């Protein structure tokens, strides 16, 4: 039985690893003529080119800063706003509205609201991309938090104040610690929403405010397969790491 369980896990690991192996394969495939299944020779040119002779690192760093800023801003805003919403008489309707921006295609949404960014001079800037991405990630976090503000938490806050704690002390010593797991989840999720975003970055960033995923598309469009594969692998590092953390956070709840 144990062997059977081990085999299952090994099969699962192999299945999950296939895309990564394929990406690695593409990133180091040198000359690869049809109908060869394996390339004529292997090459690290794309890895060298991308990191030594290219500004990819710089774009990557800017993407990390952008996505981290979105994560922090969206989570902080949603923490305070969703707490108030959950105590509103029409909270169900208010929460349902939060599904709307998330339901629209980011690229079409961006095209329809781009005039706001043109008028405000934010089109083609990182600030513009940040604000536009925030318009999608913020309601998403509101939804994530919506079920958290239940009676038990409210009663714990009341009890804390009843024991003499001020509103500020209650937020710091009771509400925040009890919300920490969700805050971490929210930071991860919003980071990923921004990290994966192509549509908004494309339209609002207008190619001037470059992000890692825009750069990958550029390589794909140029049929620069090895570069696209290498950049994709690097792009996947944060999401893979974060999804493992997210898995741990979710399992702790169960």
């Amino acid at each position: 039985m144990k062997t059977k369980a081990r085999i299952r896990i090994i099969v699962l690991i192999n299945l999950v690893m296939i895309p990564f192996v394929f990406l690695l394969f593409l990133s180091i495939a040198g000359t690869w003529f049809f109908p060869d299944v394996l390339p004529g020779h292997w090459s690290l040119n794309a890895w060298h080119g991308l990191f030594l002779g290219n500004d990819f690192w710089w774009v990557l760093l800017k993407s990390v800063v952008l996505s981290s800023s979105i994560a922090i801003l969206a989570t902080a805003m949603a923490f305070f706003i969703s707490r108030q919403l959950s105590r509103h008489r029409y909270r169900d309707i208010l929460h349902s509205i939060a599904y709307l921006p998330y339901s629209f295609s980011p690229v079409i949404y961006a095209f329809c609201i781009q005039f706001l960014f043109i008028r405000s001079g934010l089109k083609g800037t990182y600030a513009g991309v940040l604000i536009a991405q925030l318009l999608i990630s913020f309601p998403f976090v509101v939804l994530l938090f919506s079920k958290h503000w239940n009676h038990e938490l409210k009663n714990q806050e009341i009890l804390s104040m009843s024991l003499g704690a001020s509103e500020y002390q209650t937020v710091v010593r009771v509400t925040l610690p009890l919300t920490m797991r969700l805050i971490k989840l929210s930071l991860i999720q919003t980071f990923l929403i921004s990290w994966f975003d192509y549509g908004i970055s494309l339209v609002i960033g207008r190619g001037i405010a470059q992000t890692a995923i825009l750069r990958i598309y550029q390589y794909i469009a140029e049929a620069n397969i090895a570069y696209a594969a290498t950049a994709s692998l690097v792009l996947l590092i944060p999401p893979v790491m974060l999804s493992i953390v997210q898995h741990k956070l979710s399992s702790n709840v169960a």
Partner: protein
Amino acid sequence: MWLEVKNISKRFDKNEVLKDISFSLEQGKTLAILGKSGCGKTTLLKIIAGIIPACEGDVFHQHKLITHLPLNKRNIIYLYQDALLFPHLNVFENIAFGLRARKLGEEEILQKANKLISELGLTGYENQNPQLLSGGQKQRVAFGRSLIVNPDCMLLDEPFSSLDFETRTTMQMFYKEMAEKFNITTVFVTHDLKEALIMGNHFAVMDSGRLTFYKDKSEFINSPETGVMQEKTFWDNINADKT
């Protein structure tokens, strides 16, 4: 008077939950309010604690009006049906919570909390996660967390209803001892007749938002509204059947 409640009324939309409620209580005494669920007893306690506002009426502590004070300035503690311990804090930190909120020195917090922990019979559990405690232990921690801030009044909303029979009896005795020792003024609401009789020095019945206050225990026992005599007759008849 230590605690005075004058002409409290409360309406939720058009539904009148509390109707002109008044009573007063001396220091160190326990008022047991008997009432069925939905009669408005929780609402009354929440108004006294400052959790929700009354539509009319006032609350006084030692003849001082406290109706306008926010709940963290009243020094009146409302305890929920379940212990509601802070899950992210251990037993010690749960008990020390109110002292930390008052920004006392670390030495004083240590000394006061440890003393109380020992009096509560919780020595050895200081670092325990509250989720791992038994129902009775959780209630002890909840009481300790309130007692440590030396509250002017404690409002207990069926605090033993989720406990099993044996633990419930132990906790009733335990609370009585503690209330006497710390000279705590308590308003205790329950739907359990026996519990009301055990816990109270003064008695009242609440029905459909109206409070009937009784002069003493015998008036409470003899009133048809409390159902004590009905209960007594039932047990007497059982004995008669046996003989």
